[in-house]
């Protein structure tokens, strides 16, 4: 697209967003509850969330760079960037949070059959189906090779038995993408990647109460769940390839956490109101890393799109971004003093600050611990010996 056409695209985009993004969706989110997840049984803190999601979904702008035949916006990189910039300018909220968008979608685009893409991607784009991820197991932690959930061959389908843990929002999800063992003789080689409806017979979930007082994760149990083989993505026993590809996308998403959210940085706002001189120094030094990492995130995305990023670079982003986010919340707790210790009061928005702080402690654990990322960097980027 030429410069002139891009300018025109920007003008049209701006006009459309101004006309279609409700005012309420241009205010900062007050917490996780304001996030829009869609799905069969959606929950909206405000009706404008649905309006905004539907409008964006209809244009495919929830997934602007996916092909339009799969419900995407069909935009090129330059247009996608313009859309992102214009949304930032207007402070538009994200119209749809979705593991379908950030994780499964890219994997389906790469490994899915045409039928799988046509079936699942448009529903993801429009927020009709909410997905969850079945990777971790109670005894496999960071060690996916120890995966035990079994999928026995029963002709045209598999029979799945086992247990997953840390399944994000499994109790609210409609479908799951799931790693299962189809061959017990090999470790990483015996894993397949399958999709199935959480309403299938034999699926049950149990929320896990976290130290933050919230339950974003579940234990998920499979008791003789029938999964059609047509729902397997990529070849049998090749699920590890899909999983690795998808984990890279997950890390990319999670690594954005070190950055301040759009709009004012609450840490800087607190510092402006006055903090002790040592905390001020700590915040200033944090800003150095935080702003440098912001540049790193931009560089990483640019390099990724240009195919210039080291394949293990997502590990570095995940490590650095999550550690930074933990540090940010430690500093925010310090600025808040005893106000930020209140757990239930109205004034504290029901303990938003301490709950968010505690929630960040999982950042460096979920999606591969910091230790795993450092191992990967050491081995795959620095080529250090075993």
């Amino acid at each position, binding site marked *: 697209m030429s410069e002139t056409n891009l300018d025109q695209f920007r003008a049209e985009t701006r006009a459309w967003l101004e006309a279609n993004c409700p005012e309420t969706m241009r205010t900062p989110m007050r917490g996780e509850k304001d996030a829009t997840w869609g799905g069969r049984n959606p929950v909206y803190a405000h009706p404008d969330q649905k309006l905004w999601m539907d409008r964006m979904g209809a244009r495919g702008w929830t997934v602007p760079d996916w092909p339009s035949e799969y419900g995407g916006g069909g935009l090129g990189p330059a247009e996608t960037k313009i859309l992102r910039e214009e949304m930032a300018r207007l402070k538009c909220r994200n119209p749809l949070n979705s593991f379908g968008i950030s994780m499964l979608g890219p994997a389906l685009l790469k490994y899915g059959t045409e039928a799988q893409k046509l079936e699942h991607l448009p529903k993801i784009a429009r927020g009709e189906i909410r997905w969850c991820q079945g990777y971790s197991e109670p005894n496999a932690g960071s060690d996916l090779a120890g995966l035990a959930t079994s999928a026995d061959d029963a002709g045209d389908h598999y029979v799945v038995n086992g247990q997953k843990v840390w399944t994000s929002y499994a109790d609210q999800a409609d479908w799951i993408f799931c790693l299962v063992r189809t061959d017990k003789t090999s470790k990483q080689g015996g894993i397949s990647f399958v999709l199935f409806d959480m309403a299938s017979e034999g699926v049950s979930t149990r929320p*896990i109460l976290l*130290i933050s007082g919230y339950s974003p994760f579940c234990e998920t149990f499979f008791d003789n769940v029938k999964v059609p083989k047509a729902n397997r993505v990529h070849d049998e026993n090749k699920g590890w390839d899909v999983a690795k590809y998808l984990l890279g996308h997950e890390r990319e998403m999670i690594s954005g956490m070190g950055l301040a959210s759009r709009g004012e940085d609450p840490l800087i706002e607190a510092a402006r109101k006055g903090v002790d001189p040592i905390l001020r120094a700590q915040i200033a030094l944090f800003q150095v890393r935080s702003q440098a990492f912001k540049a790193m995130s931009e560089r990483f995305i640019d390099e990724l799109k240009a195919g210039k990023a080291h394949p293990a670079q997502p590990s570095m982003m995940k490590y650095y971004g999550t550690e930074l986010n933990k540090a940010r919340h430690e500093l925010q707790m310090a600025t808040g*003093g005893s106000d930020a210790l209140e757990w239930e009061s109205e004034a504290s928005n029901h303990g938003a600050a301490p709950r968010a702080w505690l929630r960040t*402690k999982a950042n460096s654990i979920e999606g591969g611990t910091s230790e795993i990322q450092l191992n990967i960097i050491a081995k795959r980027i620095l080529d250090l010996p075993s």
Partner: protein
Amino acid sequence: MPLYLTDEQQMLRDTAKDFVAEHAPVSHMRALRDANDATGFSRDLWKSFAELGLTGILIPESENGLGLGQVEAGVVLEEIGRNLSPSPFLITAVAAVEALKGTPHAACWFPGILAGDTVAAIAIDEHAKHDGKIAMQAERSGNGFRLTGAKQFVAHGHVADLLLVAAATDHGTTLFAVPTDAKGLTADPQRLADASLAARLTFDGVEVDADAVVGEVDQGDGPLARLLSAGRTGASAELLGVGGGAMDRTVAYLKERKQFGQLIGSFQALQHRAAHLYSEMEVARAAVLKAQQLLDAGEDASNAVSVAKAMTGLAATLAVQEGIQMHGGIGMTDEYDIGFYMKRARVLAELFGDSNFHADALAQGAGY
């Protein structure tokens, strides 16, 4: 005085260790939390402390206490910290007793404390950060004073019998011992992250007699300094227990959890981090004992107290952070206790000034 526990102190430690672990382990705190307990601690447990004589640990023998010092109080506090036991011990038996000792208020309040009936609260902080500034006004009114203003982060403030309040008077700061049923005083208890309760207090023209003054009018800095030295040193000792408890659980977990077919405690990166954490905790322990010994010897301990509070804040924070990270996913669950350690450490780190406050105090004390 060598910088380790005497045999007697060691014996007290053994007693306290067994007693607290048996009567107030982490499960005790969890049960209170799950029951949404409105008191913030168990009155029965406080009675048991009294029966052992522990509520009077700092009360002179001449007044029927044990007549012991900060080292001994710290021994008890460390076990309270290690077991995350909700207890008025720090505020009542350590900080308040230290402020009242040698004043006419002692005769009034010590018997109740000794009996395990009385609980005190301390109202100093007026902002979210402990900054040592007292702006709340106590105006002369008849024979006494009228207190107007607000305080926050007052542990046990909603159930205490006695309130020690610092307020500004004409020519300085004055410390008052205020009965909690005084008219115009309202307490708004808040559940904190660690499930403990602290109150926001509002003083709406609360009238107190002249004899509510602890020490002399305008001369509250003296008893306040004693209160804060004991409170800070005691909080440091409790933090030592919180950090040490978190470390012990974590090291134990490293020896039992397997990943990639190996005990995770055999991974050198975790070993080095655990060894570093051990070092920080040991150094913090020395700093606390130094402050306690100086206070007990009646020497100038202000620097040592700040070092103790700042260092335990740093070390315990590291302990709980490493604790959660090394536990991995299960460390994030409410079902496991390690998360409680993180919450409690945060509250204690903030109490009576955080590490930055005390580092800054050291710097100011050194003239920079």
